[in-house]
Each structure stands twice: as C-alpha cells, then as structure tokens.
C-alpha cells in the first residue's frame, strides 16, 4: 500500500506545537506538529468543504506509465474511512473550491492516523491558525480541523498541503480555489471585466522519482533528493500536457466565439519557473495573485514563478486554433525541461 506508520511521533513531546523529535536518522517523522485544536473564533459558515486524504491516486501518462499521486478528496466527512486515505475518491488535481467574496468559509480537513497534512489556502490571508502552516500552529492528524476564512478579494488562488510541503505539493496535494465577486461567475472582480468562457491552466511538473517516497521523507534528515527536482512529466490541470491530451479538453482548452471574452486562470503550480505563450493571441492581464492590476497589461506571453497566478482575458477576433504552450524552465540553467500544450479554438 505504500503506507507507513509514524514511528517517532506517537509518543510524547508532540502536543502543543512542541518539537518533532531529533535527527537520529532512524526513520519516522520529525518536525511535525500534530494537533486538532478548536478553531479560534469559530462561527457558522456560509459554505463548508469537507476534505479527506487520498494517498493512492493513479495518474496515467501519455506513455502508458502510471504515477502515484496524493490529493484531497471531497468526501472527508466520512470519518475513519476516506478521511484515512484508504477510501479512494481522490483526483489530481484535488477538487476545485469555488466561493464568493465575503462568505464565511469552513474547510474541514479530516486526516486519519497514518499521515499528517494541512491545508494552506494560498493567497488567502486568514487568522494564522487557519493558515495551515504546521510550525506556526499545527498539522492535522487523526481528526478533523476546521480552517475558517472569509475571502475579501475575488480572484484566482489555489490550496495545497503545507506539511513537508516540498514533497506534498509536488505529489499533487493541491486544487484550484476561485473567489467570485458578489456578482458571481462571469465577473472577474467587482468593477472588473466580465467574461463568457473560462479556462483553467494549472501547469505543473512531476519528478516520478519522488513519487515512491513516504509522506515524511527527509523530515528527520538524510538525503532523499528533495533539493533536486528533475521532472520527467509535465501536466496541465491534471492532464499530461506534453502531447495532445489537453487539446480540445475543456475546461483546460476553450472554444470561444468571436466577440466573446475568454478568461484564462493560469496557476504556476510547479516549482521551476514557467513561460506561457499564447500562440499569436494577445491577452490582457487584469489580475494577479488575487488582486486587480492598477492597469491591465497586454501580453503575448508571461513569465511566472512558483505559485503565481495570472487572470488573462482574451477577446479573439480571428477564427482559428491557437496553441497555448507553457515551457517549464530549470531554475538554475534556464533550460526548457518540458512543455505543456492546450488550445483555444475561435469559431
């Protein structure tokens, strides 16, 4: 099953945000802070998400190989089963959250006994104990914690696990997080542009050599290679993007009529930098990282670093199929490691 019990953390010393044991190199997990306290200021929610864990999510690539991914399920309320990570139901990426600006949101994360995880709503800036950063609050283990937050700014975000983050986010523990303005979908932000069609470009790289590691790999020391991300697969919104799999695959690809507005929500979900090119189309960036730009910027390509988001509106006027290519660029050498492809079809 590839599961592994915590060995050094089941004893004392882990409560109240204490240390996670030493660096004895005897395996197990270190520097995690498992707890399931009450959420400060807990009130009634307008919207509740119940997320569980799935550590066995097969992802089949274009070459026929299957890579194991980890992720969040949307059936985390099923305590003790799916929440334990054994019940399946997970997808890559994890299910998207879509909420409305100003609503009080609860993200209930149910984690079983076998692992420790958190949820960090990236770009959302809540009370720190709802931020999902273990060393400053706690990691969730063997129970359910409620992250409470109230998004103040419409835009594109994502959520991801922040435990042993280098590994867990690479393993696929993330999903899109969209905050709509009170006007609802179809408006990017209050006072901002409207759109008719939406595309989601969540571009990521996978180093398959990392995908057999246990959840706590490296936490107690020892060289498990987490300083070197040498990707061999390149995905866009959960699909192998190196070939044609993400072409004509809404909502990754999009078909728009002339005169319509397409909103592309681009998330740099990998660690290496990226450059996305619009195949001859010119788009306008209206927002980035969940904040409107003071002035929209017209672009034919964007360079992005890890976890940046860009909201781009296209108003194509010429029929045709436009290739949207994203290069994944090595963080030291600048070499293009791989490229994902999808398309915009204008009819």
């Amino acid at each position, binding site marked *: 099953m590839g599961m592994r019990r915590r060995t050094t953390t089941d004893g004392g010393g882990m409560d109240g945000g204490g240390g996670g044991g030493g660096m004895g190199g005897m395996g197990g997990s270190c520097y995690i802070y498992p707890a399931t306290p009450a959420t400060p200021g807990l009130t009634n929610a307008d919207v509740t998400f119940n997320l569980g864990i799935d550590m066995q999510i097969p992802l089949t690539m274009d070459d026929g190989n299957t890579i194991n991914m980890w992720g969040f399920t949307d059936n985390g309320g099923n305590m003790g089963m799916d929440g334990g990570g054994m019940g399946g139901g997970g997808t890559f990426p994890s299910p998207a959250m879509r909420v409305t600006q100003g609503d009080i949101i609860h993200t209930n994360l149910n984690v079983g006994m076998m692992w420790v995880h958190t949820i960090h709503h990236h770009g959302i800036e809540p009370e720190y104990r709802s931020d999902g950063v273990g060393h400053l609050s706690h990691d969730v283990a063997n129970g359910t914690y409620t992250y409470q*937050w109230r998004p103040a700014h419409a835009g594109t975000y994502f959520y991801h696990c922040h435990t042993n983050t280098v590994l867990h986010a690479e393993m696929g523990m993330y999903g899109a997080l969209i905050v709509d303005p009170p006007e609802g979908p179809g408006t990017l932000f209050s006072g901002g542009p409207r759109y008719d069609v939406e595309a989601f470009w969540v571009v990521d790289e996978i180093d398959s050599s990392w995908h057999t590691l246990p959840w706590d790999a490296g936490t107690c020391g020892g060289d498990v290679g987490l300083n070197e991300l040498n990707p061999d697969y390149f995905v866009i919104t959960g699909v192998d993007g190196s070939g044609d799999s993400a072409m004509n695959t809404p909502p990754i690809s999009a078909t728009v009529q002339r005169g319509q507005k397409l909103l592309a929500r681009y998330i740099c979900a990998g660690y290496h930098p990226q450059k996305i090119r619009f195949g001859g189309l010119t788009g306008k960036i209206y927002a980035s990282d969940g904040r409107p730009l003071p002035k929209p910027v017209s672009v034919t390509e964007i360079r992005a670093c890890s976890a940046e988001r860009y909201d781009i509106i296209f108003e194509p006027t010429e029929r045709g199929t436009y290739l949207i290519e994203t290069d994944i660029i090595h963080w030291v050498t600048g070499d293009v490691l791989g490229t994902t492809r999808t398309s915009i079809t204008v009819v």
Partner: protein
Amino acid sequence: MDRRNFLKFSSAGIASALLGSTGLLSWAPRAEAATISKTFYITEGFITQPDGVDVYFRGFSPSTNNLTVPGAQMIVQEGDTVRITIVNTLGTSHSFKIDGVVDSGRIYGGQTRTIEFQVNKAGTYMYYDARNAPYNRLVGLHGGFAVMPKGSSDEVYAGSPNFVQQYFWLFHDIDPVWHNSIRNRRTPGTTYSPRYFTINGLSGRPPGSAGSGDPAIDAMHDPLSALHGHIGDRTLLRVLNAGQCQQSVHTHGNHMDWLTDNGQIRDEIWSKDCIYLEGNMGKFDAIFPFAPPPDAHPPVTTGVYPMHLHTEMSQTAGGGLYMFGSLTDIFFE
C-alpha cells in the same frame, strides 16, 4: 592556506557579527553628505550546515579572525562618499564590486586596497567579488548595500510609497562540491546542485530542532530576517539573490507591494503574494504592509506567518530536512 585564518565557525558567530552592522530598522537622514568608512577582511573557513556538514566559505568579514557570510549590510545616502578598505588575508585574488557604482579591480592575495566612491542613485545593491565569476560570489563574498534617497528616511526611491522600517532579505544557494573546488583553487566541473539554502546567511530551525529560537542560528528568529511589526508598520524588503537559483518569494499574512524589479522602478505597483526573483544577482524591492490579514474572520491584528521561497527545493537542507532552508517568520505584534 593561511592557517591562522582558516577557522571553523558556527552559525552563531556569523549572526552576532552581523548584528554589529549599520543601522537597520531605522534610518536618520542627514542634511549633509558624509564620508562612510568601512573595512572588510576577506577571510575563509567552514560553516556548519543544518545537517552537520561543514562547508567551505569565504567572506567579507569584520576582522581577520572572523568569517561573516554575507558581509555586513550597509545603508548610505545619496551624495555620500563611501570609503571601503579591503584587507585580503587570503592567498587568492579578490575584488569588491557594486554593479554600476564601483569596481576595485584585482586585489592580490595579502594586499590591502582602499577605494573611494560617491553614491548618486538611491536603490538596493549587492556588493560582491566579481573575480572568477560567479565562483567567488557563490563561495560567500557578497553583501547587501542600500542607498537612501537624499534627505529621506522612508522611501526606497524619491517619491516611492513610504515605509517605516527596512530589511534586507539576501538569499543564497550552496553547492558544497563547488565550494570545495573553489577552496582547492579549481574551477568547479560538476553540474551545479545546491544542497543548502539561506536567507541572510542562516537557515530555518523549526520548533523542536537544535538551535530553534536562537536568533544567532535560526533564520526564523534572526532579527535581521524575521519581520516584526504592528499594524501599519510598512516594511521595505530589499531582496537580493547571491545564488544561482531563480526563486519565488512568497509571504503569508499580507501581499507585498512590488516596487522595483532588478533595479528598475516598476510602471505600476502590483500587489503580489509571490514575486519572481532571478538567479545570479536578481533583486527587487517590495513593501510588506503589515495590514490586518484581509481574510481573517473574525478580524485579527496579531499572529505569526511565514515567508518562504515557493521554489520548495529551497526549503530543504542536504536533500531533506524540510524547513531547514530559506525561510523566516513574520510577527504581527
């Protein structure tokens, strides 16, 4: 090799040396330009990394029997004359350069050189050894240098948004194989593979680890790195990259106002939670506003949040040890 200066340093010695540097959190503008004198001793030694491995470094240090990486932060004012004396205690040639400002040229082993230059353009700079590029810079010969606008205590450039305190965040990535080659006066011949990642010379030490909470060792509690502020304490971040890796600088708690990019004033100020930091001396200036975290319910004004590089490989040490890399904490007090 000069044995007298070939010292082994703990991280503790490094940070305490840094604390003796020029005023950091506040800056009192002067009506008159001044002459600022500073002496750096180029020294060498080993610095113990979070996994216990000793890695060779050279530094712009405050004395012959000290190794400081990075060199002390300097903040001066437009119009000032800066007089830098470099005492090269090593047997190898080195230099002191600030791009667009000054270049000492070759300073032979054992030589002392004083250079004098006027600073005329406000901004954030790196001083570094440009010889044998990029190796001498990578092995530790670098530091942060800032020029304040004339007569201003709260702008990064004349007319910029205001701040009330300022920090350098100088990031670095370290390949010990390369450092060892440089120690042995060989040109590194291996593919660059960074194994350690620092902010202002220190790595994170999460709660429960040896040295956690020790401001001399733990980047999360280093007073030069960790942000402390109350609501409204807008904090200028002078972000520099001495390493090779392109990074994504990510703050929790607040977005950053992104003011400059590689020395250029941006046409528009964007509010970002991740900012692209280029490798090989990339830099930017941003303001962390210390505004109430906008998405808290109920609203809050206190708390603690991390800053970390989202290029998550940089959060490790020695191939593992998540949280022992380039990160610090942000305290809303």
